[in-house]
């Protein structure tokens, strides 16, 4: 496991830069992480998603899927693709400081 410096803090990340210790994340990191995946500004809609992801992870121990977010946070999938273009699943997890959503094999 490697660490990197974000906002002057030492943060644990995996090879792809996803944070590995969810407790190290604070809201002030989100805009910096967002810039790294090409999102210049976090709008209130971004925050609805990020806060849902954080609270759902705290309860479930897993990063929510797009379907889970659209069903439970009320943000339609189409909108998720506008907010976090191309790879919303990965980008949302990255910005919210959570493990990237799982594949299977």
């Amino acid at each position: 496991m490697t660490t990197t410096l974000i906002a002057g803090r030492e943060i644990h990340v995996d090879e792809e830069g996803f944070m590995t210790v969810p407790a190290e994340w604070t809201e002030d990191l989100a805009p910096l992480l967002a810039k790294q995946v090409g999102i210049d500004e976090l709008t209130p809609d971004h925050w609805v998603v990020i806060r849902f992801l954080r609270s759902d992870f705290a309860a479930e121990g897993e990063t929510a899927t797009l379907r889970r977010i659209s069903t439970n946070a009320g943000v339609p999938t189409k909108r998720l693709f506008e907010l976090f273009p191309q790879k919303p699943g990965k980008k949302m997890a990255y910005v919210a400081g959570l493990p990237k959503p799982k594949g299977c094999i």
Partner: protein
Amino acid sequence: MKKLVVLGAGLAGTMAVNRVRPRLDEDEWEITIVDQDETHIYQPGLLFIPFGMYQAADVKRPRRDFIPSGVRFVLAPIEGVDPAAQRVTLGGGRQLEYDYLIIATGTTPRPEQTAGLLGDAWRDSVHDFYTLEGATALAHRLERWDGGRIVVNVMELPFKCPVAPLEFVFLADWWLQEHGMRDRAEVVYVTPLSGAFTKPVSSRRLGHLLEEKKVGLETDFYTEHVDASAGKIVSYDEREVPFDLLVSIPVNMGADFVGASGLGDELNHIPVDRSTFAAEGHPNLFALGDAAELGTSKAGSVAHFAAEVFTANFLRGLRGLPPHEEFDGHANCFIESGFGKAMLIDFNYTTEPLPGKFPLPGVGPFTLLEETEMNHWGKLMFRWTYWNVLLRGKDLPLPSRMLLAGKETA
């Protein structure tokens, strides 16, 4: 009398009653299992039907043949569960009371969940193979096939048997060559994941297969709708993939009564504890097999390994003892790759698929993460194992916990 009710007489439910019945006193325990129909389908065999390798008769058996004596089989649709009243409602308003409940109603393809999938073209140019009807219709379609673009599209995660669509793609490549049509046909695999194989070792070892077999790959594609008249699928980020024949893996969802009872997640799968298999807040209500959300693959082999852990811990729980061990997420899958060969993968929550020999370290006969003929025989033998070992609730000569012996490190 104490009452144990099992919902669903598929693989997991049948396995559970076969394991538990001999261990519970018949004078003290009444066991009931419920299913909506009489016929058990060997689902792994559905993969072979479109290519004419298996017929419908090869995958069907009467359910009752596998229900042990001392277990009552009830034929009825399950309509509701009321955990507070400890009661199940069946079709026609009939009710069953329980002290302990096991939900094993699996997960099924729901084409209606994707816009445009269930239109006029359904079972004409748009297909699935996760049901016997779907696999059979696709076999008829392929009999008339004369080239064009076959697109295999996974709609949503998780879905049962995550390797089945890849196997379909590999078999399609082989079948097209056998029928002298490969030069007039394209095969494309479209997945919402960022690769065909996403775990590092499998993607390194197996990623080349698609290229070798000239299978096209479209990744990070989350299908928004199917436009069958224009012959294309369209993703949420507005990419389009054209098809002549669409083979979809529709959204997989657990039973509707699970959703209605409030026990399920957004896909009606029930999150359970990894050692007791109990649903949160319901110590006498368990979910097994594909109905459960365990954070691992939904597959028969997983259901089998999990059933061993469940049975041990359930019986301990009845005696007031704490659970012994936690399920490690062990999965073991043959991946049919065409031309009489298959691959084999063995993995769990913490260890990704590794190369080596299986099940006997260093000996095999099966080889992990490589295409061999022996693995193909293993895959065909799985049907015998399914009917005679798994369903009957017997142990495989394999431990439920994954072994690292015999495996290389990368």
